[in-house]
């Protein structure tokens, strides 16, 4: 019954619509029926011929164009996404490839040197494998560098010319160094196995020195924008050296040098993971497992001191301008550091997880595995403290019941005293993970083994207690004292790591092996962890690049050249993270291309019979 009614309704509706459509068609046909065109009578036509009118208009336009004054625009617009986003993406991609190109030669050189001095061919092959990734990455670095330069000149001409006028003496050395970089890089890569090992190591050393020098010059330009020096109040250059050696130059140099190694190590480990997952033989899996391990080892070892370099940079920013420092940590960017905490927490968790999975490579039962749960608890607690914000996003009633936007208990975890303590304990815990991994499958045989272990444990406990004590003490002292407490906290952690490592080296000299390391015998999940670490590192670099640059807010050069463009405002963190993500995806698309090109090297030549692949030749 119901369906009949529906059918009837549809019939009526269909009829109405049909009639309406018919009416529309008829109306269209009637209005478009043929009519005789209107023709102007010959005597009523315009006296000025059309051609003459057009020629007059053109001449007028040319005359106006010839008389036009030259006006240098301050800004030009980039279509669709705007100038800021366009320059942002180009600069970030350039930096990511540059970081990779600077970092990989550094550890390729170290690994090659280990191979030369230990005469172990595996290291030589590994170093070459890393170097294979360089040549295409170098071209992409240069391409994005050129794109960035042109975009700055076109989109921000006034500001770029100012920067060029300040730093003009640095351009010739920069170009010269770039030439030497290309020379060293290609001779290092193509000369593999063709020279005496020491000569080849010399080329690697040259490559690293030149690469670092290039970075130092480029860092002067960008740090000057944040903490200008060596100029008058009006912006005129007084001292080029002071402009280079500004407040944030050296901290950025150190920070980038370390971060580049961490980043390069993680991307190289991701490459090894990719090759591991593609591998068809146990031998290949063993090689790429080892390569991934070394890459990750380099990344994490470089990552551990990175927060300390970060402290130094932040300290110098405060020293240059308290306003700038407070904008960073307490103003528009304070929530960015909560996102950073999530990223770094994930890095620590993933790095530890990879190490723990790696313990399974060693034959026999592992006596250290029982400690892992305690380390995991420690890492999770530190992560939670670090990611706790000072003020909480809450509804009006929640704010009322808390007595403000700061939670009465959790709010205490949102301040620097708690966060400094959490990150220091996090570093110590990860260091302990490394130590346990290092000991897996070994038993110390020296006479003082028991005492050595006890001393190491005592140092670790003393450093932890000291860091926690200073963290709590920080709540009860004035700001002037509290700020200074981070130095002894960092110092004690560094001291503990150095002294425990030194003891460990002697403790495990001539240690008895209880099980062989079976490279390649690791769950495939570990390889995905390596890729996750690389993506997280890249994203972290993108985020921190944004805060370093965005910190200037509506200034191109802080306090000197004001940004008067339509993009002078600071975007929301949500928008910034979307740009960072797009950049990261573009980077991985391109680095995937680099990996693919590098892997072509191992494929057999066209037309060659099976079993004659070119793997390992160089």
């Amino acid at each position, binding site marked *: 019954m119901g369906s009949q009614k529906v059918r009837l309704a549809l019939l009526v509706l269909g009829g109405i619509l049909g009639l309406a459509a018919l009416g529309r068609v008829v109306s269209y046909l009637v209005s478009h029926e043929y009519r005789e065109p209107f023709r102007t009578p010959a005597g009523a036509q315009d006296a000025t011929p059309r051609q003459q009118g057009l020629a007059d208009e053109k001449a007028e336009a040319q005359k106006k164009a010839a008389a036009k004054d030259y006006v240098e625009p301050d800004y030009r617009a980039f279509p669709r996404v705007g100038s800021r986003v366009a320059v942002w993406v180009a600069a970030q991609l350039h930096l990511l490839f540059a970081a990779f190109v600077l970092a990989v030669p550094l550890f390729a050189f170290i690994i090659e040197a280990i191979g030369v001095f230990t005469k172990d061919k595996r290291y030589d092959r590994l170093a070459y494998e890393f170097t294979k990734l360089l040549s295409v990455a170098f071209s992409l670095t240069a391409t994005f560098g050129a794109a960035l330069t042109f975009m700055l000149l076109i989109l921000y001409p006034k500001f770029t010319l100012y920067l060029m006028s300040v730093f003009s003496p640095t351009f010739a050395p920069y170009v010269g160094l770039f030439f030497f970089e290309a020379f060293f890089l290609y001779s290092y890569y193509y000369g593999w196995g063709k020279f005496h090992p020491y000569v080849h190591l010399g080329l690697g050393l040259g490559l690293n020195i030149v690469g670092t020098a290039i970075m130092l010059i480029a860092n002067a330009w960008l740090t000057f924008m944040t903490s200008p020096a060596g100029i008058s109040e009006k912006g005129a250059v007084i001292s080029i050296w002071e402009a280079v050696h500004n407040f944030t130059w050296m901290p950025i140099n150190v920070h980038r040098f370390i971060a580049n190694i961490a980043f390069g190590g993680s991307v190289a480990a991701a490459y090894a993971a990719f090759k591991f997952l593609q591998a068809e033989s146990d031998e290949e899996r063993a090689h790429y497992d080892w390569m991934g391990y070394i890459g990750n080892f380099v990344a994490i070892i470089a990552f551990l001191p990175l927060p300390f370099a970060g402290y130094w940079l932040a300290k110098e920013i405060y020293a240059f301008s308290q306003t700038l420092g407070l904008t960073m940590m307490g103003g*528009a960017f304070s929530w960015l550091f*909560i996102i950073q905490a999530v990223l770094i927490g994930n890095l620590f968790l993933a790095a530890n997880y990879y190490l723990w999975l790696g313990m399974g490579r060693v034959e026999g039962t592992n006596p250290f595995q029982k400690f892992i749960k305690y380390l995991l608890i420690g890492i999770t607690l530190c992560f939670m403290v670090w990611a706790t914000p000072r003020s909480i996003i809450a509804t009006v009633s929640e704010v009322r019941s808390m007595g403000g936007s700061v939670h009465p208990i959790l709010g205490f975890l949102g301040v620097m005293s708690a966060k400094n303590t959490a990150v220091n304990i996090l570093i110590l815990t990860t260091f302990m993970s490394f130590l346990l991994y290092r000991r897996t499958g070994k038993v110390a045989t020296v006479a003082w083994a028991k005492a050595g272990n006890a001393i190491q444990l005592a140092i670790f406990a003393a450093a932890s207690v000291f860091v926690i004590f200073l963290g709590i003490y920080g709540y009860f002292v004035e700001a002037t004292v509290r700020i200074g407490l981070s130095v002894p906290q960092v110092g004690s952690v560094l001291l503990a790591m150095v002294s425990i490592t030194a003891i460990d080296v002697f403790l495990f000299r001539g240690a008895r092996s209880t099980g062989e390391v079976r490279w390649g015998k690791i769950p495939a999940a570990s390889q995905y962890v390596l890729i996750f670490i690389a993506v997280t590192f890249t994203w972290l670099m993108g985020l921190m690049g944004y805060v370093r640059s965005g910190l200037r807010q509506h200034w191109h050069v802080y306090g000197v050249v004001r940004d008067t463009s339509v993009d002078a405002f600071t975007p*929301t963190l949500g928008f910034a993270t979307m740009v960072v993500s797009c950049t990261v*995806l573009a980077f991985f698309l391109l680095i995937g291309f680099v990996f693919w090109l590098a892997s072509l090297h191992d494929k057999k030549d066209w037309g060659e019979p099976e079993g004659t692949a070119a793997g390992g030749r160089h």
Partner: protein
Amino acid sequence: MRVPLIPRLALLVLATTAFYTYVGQMVPQKEVHPPVEIVLKKDMDTAEMVKVGREIMDGKGLCFTCHTIGKKGALRFPDLENVDARAKTRIPGLDDIGYFAQSMYEPDHFIVQGFNPGMPVINKPPIGLTDEEILTVIAYLQSLGGSPTVTMETKHQYNKGGGS
């Protein structure tokens, strides 16, 4: 069916990036615009100056990036509650107007005990308040624990006055 390696890796990269983008959307979202220039009338009375001074401190002056009003505990910069009462006697020979002016034109000249130097010179970039804008800020500061007396014609040691 087993998903091939490349799509699996692409999915991992995409999922990781999407997760961090999501985290980025979860924090407070605020666009920060350059400070709006306030046009000052030459004939403003003191009451109007107090209102404008507060606006300047909130915006172009960036004062509340560091300073607070009515906050207790371990602070990085002096709290401004009742500041006028303290300003009158802080430096012998300087009244409140002179002291406030000195705090802005020469902030390192006198540092309140328990705090570090760190205040920027307010009439220079990046903040760069004009002499008139500084007078309005002084008017507002006087209102915190005192009665504002400053006018747009007030002269002090930094705006071609001999001192106050």
